[in-house]
């Protein structure tokens, strides 16, 4: 048998052995047996001494080819078997991925806070400062400075919690606005403030009344602020809170601290404006009160209403949340049942 034939025979036998090896250990054994220092291929190469010098390179090259071929086959077989082993492991390790994960406790903001935060961010983006007034306020600031003199119908005793004749729990967060007006330096630019916070009314708690609730009131005063600006601002608020498809309409209303005063309605979230029980078939839901700051309010803060003007608006986050999420009892906001609080995950 020529050396070439012997190499061919070794190659074919080796390939068959490699293929037959069904575990990694066997593949390694085949490698040692075939390609080791004492293996048959080494032996063939040793036999080359007996060949004619012109034959040697030919046989040498062939021997290398056979060895590479076998090495390649061994590598492939090894990879195959390793892969098979991994595959087998993966099958064993299969989990029910629908089992719940181990929960890391997470709290969440109150739904009222979510609404207030969203509005604060919107208005800060428009250059408003957030102001927090005191919850215990003087009658003078809460009422008189907002054009509600002592005998005004809107301030009947039953609506307000008094501490003394002159001190009360604020009934509106705009109670702080006279101070903002007084303290503002108009040479530094317009006054733009948003006052969110707790307010109190002397009410018996039931599904639609709460002696404690929240308000967000906004005030802009500058040399040229228009009712059109108010309309644009309120439209933006509604679209931010409810969505782009929501429209705003203004209707005449009455507040002592604004003139003209308007009520702003938003497209009914429930029927999209077609009319339904919630909107009393009107397609609109009342969400805000607003208006142009009453000249008396400006005058009382030492601001010339001939030069300056502005708008104010107020809305109730409690009512917003009730409308937006269909909450049917305002007391839910203050009783803090975890099954209630945990329902409002997202801001949208």
């Amino acid at each position, binding site marked *: 048998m020529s050396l070439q034939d012997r190499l061919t025979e070794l190659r074919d036998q080796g390939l068959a052995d490699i293929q037959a090896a069904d575990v990694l250990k066997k593949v390694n054994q085949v490698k040692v047996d075939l390609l080791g220092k004492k293996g048959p291929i080494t032996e063939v190469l040793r036999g080359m001494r007996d060949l004619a010098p012109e034959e040697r390179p030919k046989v040498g090259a062939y021997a290398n080819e056979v060895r590479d071929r076998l090495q390649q086959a061994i590598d492939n077989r090894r990879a195959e078997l390793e892969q098979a082993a991994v595959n087998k492991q993966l099958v064993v390790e299969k989990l029910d991925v629908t089992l719940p994960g181990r*929960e*890391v*406790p*997470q*709290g*969440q903001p*109150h739904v009222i806070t979510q609404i207030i*935060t969203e509005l*604060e961010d919107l208005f800060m983006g*428009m*250059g*408003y*400062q*957030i102001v*927090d007034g*005191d*919850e*215990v*306020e003087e009658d003078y600031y809460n009422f008189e400075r907002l054009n509600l003199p002592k005998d005004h*119908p809107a301030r*009947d005793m039953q609506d307000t919690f*008094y501490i*003394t004749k002159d001190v009360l729990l604020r009934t509106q967060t705009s109670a702080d606005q006279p101070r903002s007006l007084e303290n503002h330096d108009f040479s530094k*630019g*317009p006054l*733009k403030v948003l006052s969110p916070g*707790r307010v109190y009314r002397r*009410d*018996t708690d039931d599904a639609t009344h709460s*002696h*404690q609730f929240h308000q967000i009131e906004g005030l802009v005063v*500058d*040399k*040229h*602020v*228009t*009712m*059109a*600006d108010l*309309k*644009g601002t309120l439209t933006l608020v509604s679209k931010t809170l409810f969505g782009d498809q929501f429209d705003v*309409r*203004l*209707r*005449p*209303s*009455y507040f002592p601290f604004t*003139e*003209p005063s*308007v009520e702003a309605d938003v497209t009914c979230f429930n029927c999209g404006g077609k009319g339904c029980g919630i909107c*009393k078939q009107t397609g609109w839901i009342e969400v805000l009160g607003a208006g*142009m700051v*009453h*000249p008396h309010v400006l005058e009382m803060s030492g601001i010339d209403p001939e030069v300056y003007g502005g708008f104010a608006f107020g809305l109730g986050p409690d009512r917003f949340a009730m409308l937006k999420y269909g909450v049917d009892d305002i007391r839910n906001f203050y*009783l*803090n*049942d*975890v*099954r209630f*609080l945990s329902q409002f995950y997202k801001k949208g």
Partner: protein
Amino acid sequence: MRISTQWLQDYLKLDIPADELAEKIERTAVEVDGVIRPNEGQKKVVVGHVETCEPHPDSDHLHVCQVDVGEDEPLQIVCGAPNVAAGENVIVALPNSWIGNHTKIKKSKMRGVKSNGMLCALDELGFDEKLVPKEVADGIFILPADATPGEPVFGYLGMDDEIIDMSVTPNRGDMLSMNGTAHELAAIYNQTPTMPTVDLHEDAADDVNGQLTVRVDADKHDVPQYKMRLIKNVHVQPSPLWLQIRIWNAGMRPINNVVDATNYVLMQYGQPLHAFDYDQLTDGQVNVRLAKAGEHLTTLDGEDRELLATDLLICSDDQPICLAGTMGGLDTEVTAKTTTIALEGAVFDAVKIRKAAHNHDLHSEASMRYERGIDHGMTVTALDAAAAMIAELGQGTVAKGVAVGRDEDVQPFEVTITLSKINHVLGTTLTSDTVLDIFKRLDFPTKLDGETYTVTVPSRRWDIHLPADLIEEVARLYGYDNLPATLPAGQPTIGKLNETQRVIRDSRKMMESAGLTQAISYSLTTEEKAKAFALSASDVTKLDFPMSSERTTLRLSLVSGLLDDLAYNNARKEHNVALYEQGRVFYSQPDQVRPKEIEHIAGAITGSMVKKSWGVAEQPVDFYQIKGIVAGYLKRLALAGTVSYVATSDMPEMHPGRTANIFVDETLVGFVGEVHPTTAKAYKIRETYVFELDLSALIALPKAQQQYQPISKFPSITRDVAMLVDDTVTNADVVALITDKGGAHLQNVTLFDVYNGKHVPAGKKSLAYTLTYRDQNATLIDDDVTAAFNKVLEALTEKLGAEIR
């Protein structure tokens, strides 16, 4: 205010569906609560003529009637009403008809006799009991003799009317009348309204002078006008049906022709009027004055009322006969026997009437109008109109002249404004003609000089006296829908949170990521709860006139509110609760009514914060869990001072052995611990751990200067020590000592085990710490560390009596 659209046709030609009209009113003037259609949902209710009416054979009160309903054959209907009689026209609900309150009428048998329908009373057609005339309340309603059998009854009863129910804002008192509403609609629809005229015939031979004397002893501000007329030989009787319809469709009960006439004129003109039985006055003498405290008056409703010094009174011979503007007295009430009427037309001060209505809980159509003000220019006209109407309906005569207690010179009011001001405020580019047209539609005579309008506002619009008021008129009639929508231009400003607001927001997020959910509790609570868990002693701020005993006092701590929340959850079988609250507490300040409002943050946990799940057991919360939350939070506030926890047994509401005061250096900023079991029981909660921090104080404290620390390239060496110490030795004692004696390279001391089980002698515990040494600039030498470590061991043995293990 209910506006009958049928009545409106007297004023305006409005061929507009009621819903559209209502919408227009709402968009331009005042809010509308809805459109009332009295016949809504009712069908097959017709006029019937009772041909015969026989007693039911098996009943002592039922009658069997044959009723002509315009068909070939009369219908047999059994009726139990006492006033059913042959020859009368009645309301018939035919078989398969629908009447009020969604009731269906079917053929039936009553005690064996067939009844093909029902004869109806007004309340059965959906009339509010309060609106049904008393004389027809106990039986079926008798229709006019000329009603045609078989015709629907609705037209005969005004039930085919459509009534707009307006909710009038305090500034638009002018719309609490048909006249005012007509003026408003005329402006909206650009029409000229036909206003009612007064056709008064006085009896020239019968002068009011000498028969009626009126004197006002109150000042001009309280009683700007007071006038009376005298109407004689009046027959008091029920009003004709047309008038009753207008009265009940306006939401009032028809009483008699005199009272109905005053109410009719009230609805027309918005001027309250009051009719007195003249013969009950003393010598035809009337005077008006403020009440004296302690005086009494029995009002029309039979109530004996103790009067207040702020009440305006109508008196006769100085004896009270009427509470001005709110309710008449019983003694001078117009009754069936009355023949002579003294009719009052007056203007009273809004505040006085509001107080009286409020104090006596007497809210009437009259008081509602006086409270919002009325047209001072219309008092005499309304008085004349009512006098004429009473005379006509009661076949009486009106005496010549008016008895005047006080008169007033009422003039229109002039307001000036410029076109540019209007456009400046509204953000519009209205032309002068557009604005002029709006004033014309309002029927406000206007002079234009350059761009300045001088507008003459008639007395019927007493709400308008400022330029801003005129701007509102222009805006609403131009239409808010037509306003552009823009955002304020002008100099840009920067909106951002201040330090306090930012820390508050961050604090909320930190609490939430620690697993606590935000609660918002009530600031008002009981005095006892308000004082509980207070960080420092303080007086409380109490309401002067609380609504309930549960909400009387402003809180000094947030924890007590959170415990109420926990109790609410516990009562609903929610036993795993972790809440925090951020809000104000109210500490009193010397010499001030207003308390100091301090921002606090507090938390409460009970049950397990880890949800029981597969492979996860519930882990009951404990002191160290809440302390971990507090410590993590305080760490992130990056305070410059050192936080320490000092055991306290001073808080009565807290567990004396499981509570720590929290200090930042020397400043007390809060506490953490377990609620005292007795307190927990009182709140009806289970084992609960709480903390409360003075957030205002934390915000004010200096913050650590943040500076990058290079990370050492050199390895650290650790040594572990386990020791037995007395139970009384605290972790803080040990750490302080180790830190003190640890040497320059001691970087960290970490407690990794606490054990006091059975392998430890009684009164002792085992503590184990890892000490980490590191040199920033060089590799530490093992021997040096050992030397330093040994010093620590010595100190522990010596100072704390530790037994090193």
